[in-house]
């Protein structure tokens, strides 16, 4: 077997390799993780997986030019060659005075509750039972729940290490647990799929009964849908639909996009850009949050960032580079997808604060409204123009009472206009599996295409 260096030794070795070159600064990012998953269909175990991942990403700064390389070969030779490649890549990039690496040792915070020490204590039988309980719960909701596309459970435990030649060093452990199902409701020849997933930082955060209920409800509410006339109408976004749009507006707050003229919110600091009912935060240190970490992908401590305060633009999401350019402080939002990716200004636990209106009353506040039950093509929203046009299904409401489900409709508009048109914010804040959160929202006068 190959000589195996431990995680901290790998990172030190990478920095030592860089230091041997004159004037080269470096940052090493390591991720070492393991995970398991199980997939069940209609009460039968389809597959069980065990996985491991271990790799290193190295950024170097050579005469103000940045270069990056990654490798899954963590032997001394593999590390040396990774550093060489990063230095070679730095020869072709443009010099940039704003780039630097973290300098301070990073305090590890024990109170974020993102690691479950009992990670290893759950066996395959227990995880299988959990999936079976989800399917049973969904079937209990209604006999029209006839089958499942799939039901799955997944967990992971990992170590992250970031260190720089400028003296920063930090490491933390984290775990994730999640489960979900997609079930099918059938009535005559009408079939509809509904899905729901949930989880958190501990096994106990998974509630199989709730997952089964929510998935079944989402499939059932789309049965027997009718066509709908083209019109402008108020729309209701339940928390999980609203989260999808909160995820889409995230790019507007990236300081990288602001600097490059790719955000409609550039130059709007301290101006009213959304309904005064909207306060939007990115809470990097939310206790137990699904996107919580003590520091970001560059080693900057995370924090609670207010982006919109009662509709007024109050902040952007920063990396070290964007903060230097805009004369701001890094916000700990330099996110990386994996060791093979470079850090970019992005979100952690991004959410709209809960309002005071009970969600049921909020729905009654609109004479005629459309509650959206699914959105198709979210990945085509253009955050630069802000324009979106999505496929959708919904339920038509009169004075808050559901009348009938509708299908084959579109919902179109502009993200900034949508933020301004929010007329009520519910008290039912929920968080989704990526860490994005929202309460129920009522949005006035939206373009809906149909017949």
């Amino acid at each position: 077997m190959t000589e195996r260096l431990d995680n901290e030794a790998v990172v030190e070795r990478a920095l030592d390799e860089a230091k041997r070159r004159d004037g080269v600064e470096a940052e090493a990012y390591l991720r070492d993780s393991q995970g398991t998953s199980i997939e069940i269909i209609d009460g039968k175990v389809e597959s069980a997986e065990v996985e491991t991942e271990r790799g290193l990403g190295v950024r170097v700064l050579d005469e103000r030019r940045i270069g990056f390389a990654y490798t899954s070969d963590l032997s001394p030779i593999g590390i040396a060659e990774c550093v060489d490649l990063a230095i070679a890549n730095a020869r072709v990039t443009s010099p940039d005075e704003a780039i630097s690496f973290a300098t301070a040792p990073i305090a590890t915070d024990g109170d974020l509750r993102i690691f479950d020490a009992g990670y290893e204590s759950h066996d395959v039988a227990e995880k299988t039972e959990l999936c079976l309980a989800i399917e049973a719960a969904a079937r209990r909701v209604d006999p029209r729940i006839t089958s499942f596309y799939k039901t799955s459970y997944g967990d992971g435990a990992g170590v992250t290490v970031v260190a720089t030649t400028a003296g920063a060093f930090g490491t933390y452990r984290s775990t994730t647990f999640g489960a979900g199902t997609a079930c099918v409701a059938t009535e005559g020849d009408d079939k509809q799929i509904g899905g729901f997933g949930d989880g958190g930082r501990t096994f106990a955060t998974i509630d199989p009964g709730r997952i089964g209920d929510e998935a079944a409800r989402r499939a059932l509410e789309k049965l027997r849908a009718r066509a709908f006339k083209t019109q402008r109408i108020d729309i209701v976004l339940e928390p999980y639909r609203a989260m999808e749009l909160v995820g889409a507006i995230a790019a507007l707050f990236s300081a990288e996009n602001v600097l490059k003229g790719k955000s409609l919110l550039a130059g709007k600091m301290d101006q009213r850009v959304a309904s005064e009912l909207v306060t939007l935060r990115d809470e990097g240190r939310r206790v137990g949050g699904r996107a919580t970490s003590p520091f970001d992908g560059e080693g900057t401590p995370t924090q609670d960032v207010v982006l919109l305060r009662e509709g007024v633009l109050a902040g952007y999401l920063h990396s070290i580079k964007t903060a230097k350019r805009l004369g701001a402080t890094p916000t700990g939002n330099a996110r990386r997808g994996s060791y093979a990716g470079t850090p970019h200004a992005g979100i952690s636990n991004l959410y709209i604060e809960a309002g005071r209106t009970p969600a049921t009353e909020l729905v009654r506040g609109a004479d005629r409204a459309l509650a959206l039950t699914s959105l198709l093509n979210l990945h085509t929203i253009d955050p630069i123009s802000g324009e979106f046009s999505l496929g959708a299904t919904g339920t038509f409401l009169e004075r808050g009472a559901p009348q009938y489900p509708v299908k084959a409709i579109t919902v179109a508009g502009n993200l900034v206009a949508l933020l301004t048109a929010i007329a009520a914010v519910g008290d039912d804040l929920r968080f989704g599996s990526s860490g994005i959160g929202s309460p129920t929202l009522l949005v006035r006068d939206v373009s809906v295409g149909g017949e």
Partner: protein
Amino acid sequence: MPTDTLVRSFVLTETDAARVLRTALSQGGDWAEVFWERHRVLSLVFDDGKLEEATSGTDQGAGIRVLLGDRTVYADGNVTDVDDLTALAGRAAGAVGRSAPDRPIAELRRVEVLPPSEVRIDPRDVPIEQKVRNLELANAVARGHDERIAQVTVVYRESVQDVVIANTDGQFATDRRVRLVFAVNAVAKAEGLQQTGYEAIGGTVGFEQMSEDAVADAARTAARRAILNLEAEPAPAGTYTVVVSSEAGGTLIHETVGHGLEADFNDRGLSVYAGKLGQRVASELVTVVDDGSLPGRRGTSAVDDEGTPTRQNVLIENGILRRYLTDRKYAKKMDLPLSGNARRQSFRHLPIPRMTTTMIAPGKTEPQEIVRSVEGGVFVRKMGGGQVDPVSGHFAFEISEGYKIRGGTVAEAIRGATLTGHAPTVMNSIDMVGSDLGFSIGTCGKDGQGAPVADAQPTIRIPQIVIGGIVRESKP
């Protein structure tokens, strides 16, 4: 292989593969497979007038699959040598958790397939400076197109994926997939409005595709689309006659038919196309083909990710459903032939049935005649992304370049629209199919896995479909 110095490489031989497979079955199981992969990537990002990122790296790993009846056990992880790989096979066997005598495995024999794509210039032999010059050229061309072009992002990505796949049936297959992408995104601004235009070229091709002319063309197209969208009216909402040009690419066929014909959606009757082999599912003008062996296309490979040679599959012939896209699991379960469509994002994933290059075959009508036939409607010159719910058949895709049709001619540009509908209804309604054919490239997402694909179609007419745009009048 002169440039693969980064990760100490090992070539998985038949002998080693056989040893790994024996380990995988050492605790029982009916069948085992090893999927080994070395994936080398170089990516360059030119943005905001600067070369912002130069990134390269190698990920090497394997996935070991053991089948016990209908149950699959999978172990995956990074590996640097054969010992790592054997240890991984041991972990898979451990997860099987039975104790059974060693099962004999068939002698491994190479699956002989000629590489469908010719790579004349290996991108790794091209100096990085030349690649950077291409990015600078594209940036200059896009910015020079119009003074309202305010920002340009250009991305070049080369990916060399080597795979070795062996199983206890005795198959031993190797493949190298060289894939290039060159993508340009331009932002145009005027009077408080900002709009974007995008174009990408690429395929399973060598650097010969990345000529100065080709990258400049892509840049010009992206810039032209951004300006067009700046000047365009917001699209209307409602039901219209739509002509989709062959230049638009094939997102439509990918969403309306392709996903619905993947075997996993059809097993247990979930897809709107389930149980309909031999039946009419589309207009008789419609023939749909998926072909993983088309030279140079982005969805092309010699073998699929289970080692089955790729091939041309006629899925719908003159409106009649002929075939589903299968992988080993669903071919066996549904008693269907292997179509060469088992694909996985990487060694970290189990294979699933996926499209490769999917197209509607050309018909007989002159494309101009199709446009002339429409009194009032919408002309789609370029499609963007799409999505389908294969269970309900409800789909949506984006129009990234669109126009109104007035009196049989293409008129003013419209922007920000989506087409949506019920897939079988729309496929049955297609009443004109052109004699032309155009391709586009993309990355398809399914079950959390990305796969490089291409799509193609001729010019077609859909008599009635919902367009999602802006509604001008206030509430009824």
